């Protein structure tokens, strides 16, 4: 490690490693960044904050040369630079770990760490030296990973750490970590932070993007907040409170959430007479054990449970995506068998899957085309939707759900996660379902969109739609639901009216079951 004198360290600290100012980037139909600035200093961890779709990833990709900028300047090490490819920015000492692991799973760990920089002797790659160097870097980061093993055989968390090890090996002046912790557990996060502190002490400038506020406050020295592609402000972490940060990021949405909660409390459901849908002893081997459940008209059923507790599996049974082995289903007292999703749709049931990317969004189609997919499917392909009806519906839902950009022809791939989710909801709402099953509708989207989606669910229930709401975020489930179903180990373990139930109550129900098991 190079030991810098105090003055030298001070001197490098005064001149920013990277200074971006007035940077604008636009995609077809979307202005992703408008005149944004970012100043990064050596030996500092700089958090880049904002909701999803605020422009964080775009800003990073503009800096690293993945996207070209329309306006603005990027000054690196005192000189204005324009990077045309990641290779160029890498050569200038900027190393990036992207949100999704961008490595080659078909190669070994060592190859992934050193691709493009392999140690060579006589023009040939020295595999032994490569494995040794990779091993040393991994050891320095305290990671116990065999450099010779194939990357694809490791879980995502390990792959993420390998990506970071690759970035560290470059000896970068600037290390960009775009949501590096989203797939790491607490120990791994601690390990990563240790690595980050080491690098910071060595004078590396680090950009840290994360949704976890606690982590940001723990590790960062400064923060830049973006909102809707615009610069909100730069803050010194030590002088900022979490509340101030959240307000800078989202502004008005806090009030919305409080209002939803109040409305949901006032919302009452008639649980007399025949329920909209009733399942008795419904189950499927290896998926969910016998579940009894009633859903009344206009009722929001919240399903809480750990991952793998069977919440998604239950939703799939209700929608006919999986066929039950046993049990009955009644809709409005009539025995109904749902063998395929198509039959469920015909019975006015809609299901929004938790896997937005792989099971919902079609990225290369426009907002309008994505919206009318389910409706078109239920009409049959031989009866196209009249253009005027389609335009009217699409316009209505873009406005109702506040989808941005409000351009029906914008491609789905250019939308943020939250807006994609809204389009998916619109897709199902167009079919006018009586029962809407939402599996993790708010996962991975920003607080603003979360609030809007929750508001929407509350409004739909008020208008008489029944909703099954599944989420890992207990606050959400408790805020919205009239009745709460708790699942564990593929069984329903509790059901109660959602009155004065708190997060810790639910946790206790789940934990209590654990104790009973033990």
């Amino acid at each position, binding site marked *: 490690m190079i030991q810098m004198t105090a003055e030298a360290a001070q001197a490098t600290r005064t001149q920013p490693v990277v200074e971006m100012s007035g940077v604008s980037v636009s995609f077809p139909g979307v202005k992703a960044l408008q005149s944004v600035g970012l100043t990064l200093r050596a030996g500092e961890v700089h958090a880049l904050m904002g909701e999803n779709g605020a422009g964080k990833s775009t800003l990073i990709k503009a800096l690293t040369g993945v996207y070209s900028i329309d306006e603005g300047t990027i000054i690196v090490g005192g000189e204005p630079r324009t990077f045309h490819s990641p290779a160029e920015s890498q*050569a200038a000492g900027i190393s990036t770990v992207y949100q999704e692991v961008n490595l*080659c799973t078909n190669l070994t760990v060592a*190859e992934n760490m050193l691709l493009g920089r392999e140690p060579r002797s006589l023009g040939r*790659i020295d595999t032994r030296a490569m494995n040794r160097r990779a091993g040393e870097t991994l050891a320095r980061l305290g990671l116990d990973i065999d450099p010779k093993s194939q990357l694809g055989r490791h879980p*995502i968390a390990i792959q993420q750490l390998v990506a970071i090890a*690759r970035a560290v090996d470059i000896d970068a002046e600037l290390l960009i970590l775009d949501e590096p912790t989203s797939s790491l557990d607490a120990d791994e996060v601690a390990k990563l932070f240790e690595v980050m502190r080491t690098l910071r002490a060595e004078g590396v400038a680090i950009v840290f993007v994360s949704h976890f*506020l606690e982590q940001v406050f723990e590790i960062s020295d400064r923060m830049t907040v973006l909102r809707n592609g615009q610069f909100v402000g730069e803050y010194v972490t030590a002088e900022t409170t979490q509340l101030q940060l959240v307000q800078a990021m989202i502004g008005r949405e806090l009030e919305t959430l409080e209002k939803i909660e109040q409305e949901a409390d006032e919302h009452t459901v008639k649980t007399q007479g025949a329920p909209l849908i009733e399942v008795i002893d419904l189950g499927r081997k290896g998926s969910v054990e016998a579940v009894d459940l009633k859903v009344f008209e206009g009722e929001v059923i919240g399903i809480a449970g750990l991952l793998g507790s069977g919440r998604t599996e239950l939703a799939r049974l209700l929608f006919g995506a999986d066929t039950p082995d046993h049990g009955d289903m009644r809709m409005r007292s009539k025995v109904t068998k749902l063998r395929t999703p198509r039959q469920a749709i015909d019975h006015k049931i809609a299901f929004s899957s938790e896997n937005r990317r792989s099971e919902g969004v079609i990225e290369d189609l426009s907002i309008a085309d994505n919206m009318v997919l389910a409706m078109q499917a239920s009409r049959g392909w031989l009866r196209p939707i009249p253009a005027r009806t389609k335009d009217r519906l699409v316009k209505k839902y873009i406005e109702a759900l506040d989808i941005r950009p409000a351009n029906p022809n914008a491609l789905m791939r250019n939308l943020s996660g939250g807006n994609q989710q809204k389009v998916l909801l619109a897709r199902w709402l167009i079919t006018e379902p009586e029962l809407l099953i939402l599996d993790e509708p708010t996962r991975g989207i920003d607080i603003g969109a979360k609030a809007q989606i929750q508001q929407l669910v509350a409004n739909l229930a008020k208008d008489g739609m029944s909703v099954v709401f599944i989420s*890992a975020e207990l606050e959400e489930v408790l805020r919205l639901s009239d009745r709460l179903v708790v699942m564990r180990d593929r069984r329903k373990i509790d059901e109660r009216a959602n009155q004065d139930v708190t997060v810790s109550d639910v946790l206790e129900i*789940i934990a209590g079951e654990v104790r009973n098991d033990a």
Partner: protein
Amino acid sequence: MTTVIAPPESPANSPAPRPSRGFTFPARFLPVIATVVLFFAMFGAGSIRYEGFSSPQTILSVLVDNSFLIVLAVGMTFVILTGGIDLSVGSVVALSAMIAASALRSGWSAPLVVVAVLLTGSVLGLLMGLVIHYFEIQPFIVTLAGMFLARGLCYVISVDSIPIKNETFTSFASGTIEIGDYFITPSVIVALVVLVIAAIVLHMTRFGRTVYAVGGSEQSALLMGLAVARTKIGVYVISGFCSALAGLLYAIYTLSGYSLTAVGMELDAIAAVVIGGTLLTGGSGFVLGSAVGVLVLGLIQSFISFDGTLSSWWTKITIGVLLLVFVLIQRLFTRRTV
């Protein structure tokens, strides 16, 4: 906004199943090993069934008769490893043989002809690679166009078969290299040299590793700052070069150039690569596997000629069945690892 219950990452991820140290290679080599086993099983079966089959000369003859296909399959392996495909190679073989035959007939010297042919093939590959990369057009379409172009150019040169009478070529064709009681031809040496160079390039150079990286994930390779453009274009140049070289070997093998030769040979090359264990989606496979794939195809023909009663279409049927079986094996194999 605290997520109280299990964060969305699946708990299945947390107990990291670290693979045992040291012995991680078999999975990657499995398809190649399967091909080698198949080859020797076929050889064993033939030896039991037919008299004289068990001689090492059987295998050497397969090499002699298929040296051009090995060269072709090596080039094809580079392309397929990046996730591409090159349909033009059969036509380029014919074109190369045509160019060689007609240039020799008009009195060009042999070395000049060799250089000209290799250059033509490489330039054709370069052009296709440039179109594929910079216009982002599917390799299938671009090389299909290249296939028609090269085939058409053959007819422009001559519609009739042109014999080769150049002494350098004829002596190369009739030359044999004795190994004890057995023999091979100089073409086999050329093919084996190409194979070894290809293996070294793929496994010991940055270019080679980038080929695998691009095949694994082009997007990742780009974000890692690798020379994706150069690599993607490079593999088509290599394939073009190999096609031209195979064309020369083919011209020497047949001592003529004819527009209608090597029709469908690109498919033989693809079949050999796939049977050799290379994934058509890219990123996984070895040139050695492709060479063994060629030997398997060749051995099927030996079966038929030894049997004497089987018709030659059994070659096609067997190749079809083998291809299907190997693709299915690969499918199961990749499903398990992903």
